[in-house]
C-alpha cells in the first residue's frame, strides 16, 4: 500500500508538470481557436533565453523580466507576421502555420544561444522531504511540491484574470466568436497579442520548471508530447481541465508503468496516456471540462 501511494503521489505531481505545458495550449486555443503546435518550441525558447541572459551575469529576477520581454516580443511578432495575414483562414491553415513557427522558433533559439545543454538551479532541491520519508516511508520530492505550488498560483491567477478583468472578458468574447467580438469593438489583434504574451509567460514558467528538472536543452520541446493527452482529457478550452487532465494522466501512466509494464515489456508510459485519451475521446469528445459544440442545422 505504501508503495502504491508513493507511485500515485509521484504520478499526480508529475501530472502537474505536464499541466504547465498544457496550459499554454489552452490559452491560445481559447482565444483564437488555434492549436498552437509551437508551444513546446516556445517552452524551449523561453528557458534557453532565460539561461542565456543569466549567463551574461544578469541577476535572476531581471533575467526573468527580460526573458518575459522576449516572449512578449515573440508573441507580438507571431501575431503580426503569422496570424494577422491569416485571419478568416480555415483552422487547419492556422495550425499548419504554427508547425512552421515551431521550426522557426527552435532554430532561432539555437541560433541565438547556441546548442549547448545548460543546467538550471532554482534553489529547490529535487530530493525527498526527510520527515515524511522517515514517518511514512513515502518519498515526496521538495521540487515536485514546489512545482505544484507554482501551478496552483498560476491557475488561480489565470482564472481570476479571465473571470474578473476587462481584458479577460474580452478574451472570452473573442474565444466565443471572432466576428461577434469584432462587431462590438473588441480589438482582435490586441487580444491575440495579449494572449500570445500570456502563453509566452506560461511557457517561461514551464521552461524553468522542466529546465530545472532535466536541464535546458532541445528536449524541452518534447514536453509538448506529454501535454497532448492532458488536453484531450481535460478539454482544449479549460484552464482547470488542463490541471485535472494532468493529474489523471500523470498518475495513471505511472501506475500503468509500475503495475502493468512488466507484463508487456515495460516502457509503456509513452503510449499509455494516448490510449487512455483515445478511449476518453470516444466517450466524451470535448474532454472533461471542454465546451460542448452544438451546430444548429
Amino acid at each position: 500500500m505504501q508503495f502504491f501511494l508513493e507511485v500515485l503521489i509521484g504520478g499526480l505531481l508529475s501530472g502537474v508538470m505536464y499541466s504547465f505545458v498544457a496550459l499554454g495550449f489552452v490559452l491560445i486555443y481559447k482565444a483564437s481557436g488555434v492549436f498552437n503546435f509551437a508551444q513546446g518550441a516556445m517552452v524551449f525558447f523561453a528557458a534557453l533565453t532565460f539561461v542565456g541572459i543569466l549567463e551574461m551575469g544578469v541577476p535572476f529576477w531581471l533575467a526573468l523580466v527580460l526573458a518575459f520581454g522576449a516572449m512578449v516580443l515573440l508573441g507580438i511578432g507571431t501575431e503580426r507576421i503569422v496570424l494577422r495575414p491569416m485571419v478568416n483562414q480555415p483552422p487547419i491553415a492556422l495550425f499548419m502555420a504554427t508547425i512552421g513557427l515551431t521550426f522557426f522558433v527552435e532554430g532561432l533559439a539555437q541560433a541565438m544561444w547556441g546548442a549547448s545543454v545548460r543546467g538550471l538551479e532554482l534553489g529547490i532541491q529535487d530530493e525527498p522531504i526527510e520527515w515524511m520519508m522517515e514517518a511514512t516511508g513515502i518519498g515526496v520530492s521538495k521540487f515536485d511540491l514546489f512545482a505544484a505550488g507554482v501551478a496552483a498560483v498560476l491557475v488561480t491567477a489565470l482564472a481570476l484574470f479571465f473571470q474578473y478583468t476587462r481584458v479577460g472578458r474580452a478574451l472570452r468574447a473573442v474565444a466565443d466568436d471572432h466576428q461577434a467580438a469584432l462587431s462590438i469593438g473588441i480589438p482582435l489583434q490586441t487580444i491575440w497579442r495579449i494572449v500570445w504574451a500570456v502563453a509566452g509567460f506560461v511557457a517561461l514558467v514551464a521552461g524553468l520548471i522542466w529546465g530545472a528538472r532535466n536541464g535546458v536543452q532541445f528536449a524541452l520541446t518534447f514536453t509538448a508530447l506529454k501535454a497532448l493527452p492532458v488536453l484531450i482529457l481535460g478539454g482544449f478550452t479549460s484552464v482547470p481541465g488542463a490541471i485535472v487532465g494532468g493529474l489523471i494522466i500523470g498518475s495513471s501512466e505511472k501506475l500503468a508503468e509500475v503495475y502493468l509494464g512488466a507484463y508487456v515489456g515495460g516502457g509503456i508510459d509513452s503510449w499509455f496516456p494516448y490510449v487512455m485519451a483515445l478511449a476518453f475521446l470516444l466517450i466524451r469528445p470535448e474532454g472533461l471540462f471542454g465546451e460542448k459544440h452544438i451546430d444548429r442545422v
Partner: protein
Amino acid sequence: MQLKTKLLLSAVAVSSVLTSSAVLAQANEQFIGLPSYRVGAYAAGGSGIYGGWIDYMALINEKEGGVNGVKLTWEECETEYNNARGVECYERLKSKGASGNSVFQPLSTGITYSVLDKVAQDKIPMVTIGYGRTDASDGRVFPWVFPMLTNYWSQNTAKIKFIGAKEGGMDKLKGKKIVNIYHDSAYGKETIPVLDAQAKKYGFTVVHIPVSHPGNEQQSQWLRVRQEKPDWVILRGWGVMNPTALKAAAKIGFPRDKVIGVWWSGAEEDTIPAGDAAKGYIAAGFNVAGANYPVVKAIQDNVYKKNKGNMEDKSRIGSVYYNRGVVHGIITVEAIRTAQAKFGKGKVINGEQMRWGLEHLVIDAKRLKELGAEGFMPDLKVSCLDHEGSGKVKFQQWDGKQWKVLTDWIDADKELVRPMIEESAAKYAKEKNITPRDCSKEG
C-alpha cells in the same frame, strides 16, 4: 564586334585557367564528407564531436601541410540526426572531391543501418566509432563497415569487469543484482544479450528496465529500481534521458557512484544539467576528457591561435564530445596515411584504398605518443577479421565540475564477446546470402 569577340575570348581563357587551377588544386586534396548535426535535438553532441574532428584535420593542414602534402578538405551536410537526411547527405557527398568521398562516418546508428548496403555497392568504407552494428566487428561479413574502437558488447563486458573489481573480484559478483536502465530503442536493447550472458557466467541477476524515448520522465522506472534494491545500475541512455536518470536516482537515494553509464551517457552534457545529482556518477569511455593532452594543446597552438578553430564556445575544447571528435580525426588521418603508404605517398586515395588503409590501421602506444594522444584513446590494431581493433575502455567519474579518470584501459572479455559477434554476423550473412571473406587470402 571585334572588341566583343576579344573580350569573350579573354573571358573564356581566364575562366579556363581558373577552372584548371581549381581542378589541379582539387586533384591534390583529400575530401572528407561530414554528415554532421549541429541543429536539432542532438546538436549539443554533434557540435562538439564535429568541432573536434574538424579542428584535428585543420591541425594536420596547418602543421604538416596535409597528409604527406595532400591537403585535407571537408564539407558538412546537416542530417539533424535524421535517417532520411542522412541518406540524402550520403548521396550528396559521395561523388565530391577528386576521388569522391573516401570515407563515410554518420555518427548515428540509424543512418548507419540506412546506408549499410549502399556503402558496399559504392565501395565507400563506413566508420562507426562507438555506435552502429556490433556484429560488424566481424570484417569477414562486413568488409565495408568498421565499428572501431570499442563496440557496445566489449564495453559492457569491461563494465562488468570494473564492477567485479569494485566488489573485490569477479567471483564476488555471484548473488549480486544489477539493473540495466536502457533507452527503449535498438541502441538501448543492443546490450541485453551480452548482459544476460555475463549474468549466467558470473552468477549475478540482471533486471532490464526500459525507458521510452525521450526519457524526460522516469519516476516509475526508478521507483522500480528502489523496489529491486540493486547493487549497481547500468545506465544506457541518450540525450535528456541521462540527466533525468541521475536526478531520479538522487530522488530515490540511490548512490550515484554505483551508477555506471555508457559513453553516450558520459559527457558534460549529461552531467551538468543534473547538477549535484551527478556527483560521483561513473561512465565508461573510449576517450577521456581534458584539454591537457599534447594533441589538444597542439590544436590550440596551431589552429585557435590563428583564429581557424571550429568551436564557437572555446570552453568546450577538451570536453568528452570534443575529444571524441579529435579521436575521429586521428583515426581518419592515420587511415589515410596507412593507405598512402601502400598506394603512393602524397597521392589522393579513393574509397577502396581507404578501406585497405582502415583494415590495416595500427595505432600502437609509440604512435599514440607521437600523436600526443597517449592515454587519450586506446591503442588500435584493425584486421580483416577484427574491424573493432581495440575493445578497451577507461572509466571516468564526475566530481561535480569535471570528469576524473578512475582507471587505466580495461580490456573487454573477448572470450565471451567474439563468439557472440561471429554468431550474429554469420546469421546476418545467411540472411543476406553473403559469403564471408577468407581473411588468410586478403592482402
